[in-house]
């Protein structure tokens, strides 16, 4: 119909239309009361006088494509009728919202650009229902999200718990792998710098070799970890415990590699410290990620424990003086994203060093 025809027929039809233009250029006309249900269109009509004819069609925001526009207009057409009961509206909404996730997201975006709050609310609730209760993998699959976080970043001490045992196992595996990688770095570091006096006993060597055979990475294995279990204590003692565990296991592995009094002073604390950090992180992770998982701690022979306690205090002192340099060295090992994340509420000896430029984030 030409505009003239419209002008003539309009009074008889007793209906006025608003002209809308979507981003792709197509223009359509919509009944006025339906279109005015959208605040953005309403604003354009009232404040700027647009939409009365084809030439002055209201340009809709880019996020509104024709398919979405027709959905939104369906919604408006139903809801702008005043006489509907709440029950009717609710049941319409429930049927309306049944669409695939992709269209749901597009609809949310389009409704938001038209400032149609009730529809945004409806779609966001629907999206929330889809997200709720699912594992991260499921969510990524549904919404086609790229899995572009490193495993470390995933394990950061955010509250990203999951009860899914597979995920828990995975997290633990990643934690171990990371630790192993770190240990390897320390090893390289150590070998490059310090002179070792090798006074390992034969037993030590044997046990080291055995441990090495069991795990090509050369450090504590999950087997040995599993052997020593201890029920989890409260937080304040766990860091010391973790350090203890570390030391007790290192007596199999690392210490035999870098065993000298000199080395003891310098390397052990830093290794102990880093691994302590990892362990504290793990502890925090364990606290947070594996709430039900009480089997990460180890059991320690009391006599050994005392010795270890002393060592812990020792290195804690050294840590406070040694730490910045050590960190620089570790960081400069050329591995990207080797971030060591410090627990925000860890224990006193480790946190809150200002030099820790450790969060490597995008």
């Amino acid at each position, binding site marked *: 119909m030409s505009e003239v025809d419209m002008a003539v027929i309009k009074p008889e039809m007793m209906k006025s239309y608003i002209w809308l233009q979507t981003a792709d250029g197509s223009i359509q006309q919509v009944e006025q009361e339906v279109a005015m249900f959208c605040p953005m269109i309403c604003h354009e009509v009232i404040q700027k006088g647009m939409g009365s004819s084809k030439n002055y069609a209201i340009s809709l925001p880019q996020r509104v494509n024709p398919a979405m526009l027709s959905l939104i207009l369906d919604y408006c057409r139903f809801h702008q009728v005043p006489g509907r009961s709440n029950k009717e509206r609710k049941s319409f909404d429930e049927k309306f919202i049944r669409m695939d*996730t*992709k269209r749901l*997201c*597009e609809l*949310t*975006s389009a409704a*938001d650009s038209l400032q149609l709050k009730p529809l*945004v*609310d409806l779609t*966001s*609730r629907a*999206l*929330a*229902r889809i*997200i*709720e*209760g699912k594992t*991260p*993998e499921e*969510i*990524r*699959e549904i*919404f*086609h*999200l*790229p*899995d*572009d*976080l490193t495993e470390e*970043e*995933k394990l950061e*001490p*955010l*509250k*990203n*718990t*999951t*009860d899914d045992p*597979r995920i828990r196992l*995975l997290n633990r595996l990643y934690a171990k792998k990371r630790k192993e990688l770190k240990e390897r770095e320390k090893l390289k570091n150590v070998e490059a710098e310090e002179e070792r006096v090798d006074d390992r006993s034969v037993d030590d060597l044997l046990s080291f070799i055995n441990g090495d055979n069991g795990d090509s990475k050369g450090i504590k294995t999950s087997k040995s970890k599993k052997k020593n279990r201890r029920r989890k204590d*409260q*937080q304040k003692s766990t860091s010391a415990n973790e350090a203890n565990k570390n030391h007790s296991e290192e007596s199999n592995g690392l210490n035999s590699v870098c065993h000298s009094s000199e080395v003891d002073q310098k390397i052990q604390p830093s290794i102990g410290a880093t691994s302590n950090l990892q362990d504290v992180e793990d502890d925090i992770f364990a*606290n*947070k990620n594996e*709430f*039900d998982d009480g089997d990460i701690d180890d059991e320690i022979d009391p006599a050994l424990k005392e010795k270890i306690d002393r060592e812990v205090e020792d290195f804690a002192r050294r840590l406070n003086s040694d730490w910045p340099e050590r960190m620089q060295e570790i960081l400069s090992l050329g591995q990207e994203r080797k971030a060591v994340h410090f627990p*925000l*509420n860890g224990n006193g000896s480790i946190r809150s060093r200002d030099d820790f430029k450790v969060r490597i984030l*995008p």
Partner: protein
Amino acid sequence: MSIVTKQREPLRLPIKTEAELDKISNLPGHVIDQILSHLPIRDAVRTSVLSRKWRYKWATIPYLVFDNQCLNVSSQDQTFIKNKLVNIIDHVLLLHKGPLHKFKLSHRDLLGVTDIDRWILCLSRSSIKEFILEIWKGQRYKPPSCLFNCQNLIHLELFNCLLKPPLTFKGFKNLRSLDLQHITIIQNVFENLISSCPLLERLTLMNFTGVTHLNIDAPNLQFFDIGGIFDDVSFQNTVHLALVSIGLYVNIDNEENNAEENSSKLLRFFVNLPHIRRLEVQSYFLKYLAIGSVPSRLPNPCVDLNYLSIRIDFEDLEENIAAQCLLRSCPNLQELEMLARPEEQNSVETSSNFWEDDHWSSLFAHLRLVKVSGISGVKSEMDFIKFLLSNSPVLERLTVKPASQDGEWELMKELLRFRRASIYAEVIYLDP
């Protein structure tokens, strides 16, 4: 690694990149906030592992709700649970950025006072608008004075707290809704609190200690719901008050009260409620209203009152008189609910009929729905129902629900017999 294979769209769209398929991550921030706000806090924070873009999307959600669902622990160790919960809340608050509008903490396990103090301090710095705190266990918790500095508060809800604002407290200038339950507060602090919140529209007060005279001075108050033990209630400047629900949880002895008081409590109660629309008189409040010399009707009828619910002991003379006064004073009443108070049957069943049929029919001109519950078929109750049925010309439905199955048949037989003024009236009998 289990997260390696991603299901790409089938080959019909080979050119679409992953980025194009991902429609949700690029929604505007406030929309994502809205989506995440509809999730429980666990799921919302878990989105941080979805992808790089989603890492900190959760950190801007303006609503934080920590309730019994946010911890999924099978352990029964109290300290363990408490520590975990404290950790979680600390972490979330620390990593949160942007304005925080709503915070709710309602966990059944015991939480430390210093922890809650710390969180309230954090919230008071972030222009919080809605604050809900429910202390399930332990003694009354005293919020720190920084809570009273939150001038952006619109809704405040406290359960099991002791309120003692600092001397410099001048009220919450933006508060519209106040919900205090199981609280301790002293008289003048309470009065100051109410009168210094000029925008207060809703007030709920349940089970309070320390206040005996409820003096409500709130010019914008629309909704008032109280249940507790008090001596006196009076309103000032409450022209907008439309919904009132009052329950007096203690049985007052009217004999001695009547000896002292001559002014009617009923009159005083209604003098400042000109536009009341819904009134619920619960527990023993009708006894309170019966104190003093009750007029036969109020001087200014409550023309807007269309719903009335009264808990009454049909055997008690004073209560019946008070109820009659109320019923005579609301000409436009549409819905009535009479709940019989389950008293011990120690009073002798009275033989007089309180509800004499005496030119009443003009006053129930709009009454359509009536519900009578908890009755046991005694004469006074049946007198009332008979009276009601013969004086409600437009009655549509009368629902009767007895207290027990004793005497059911007798009750029903009598009900059947009563004359009905309205030809449309349905009498529905519900099982006890």
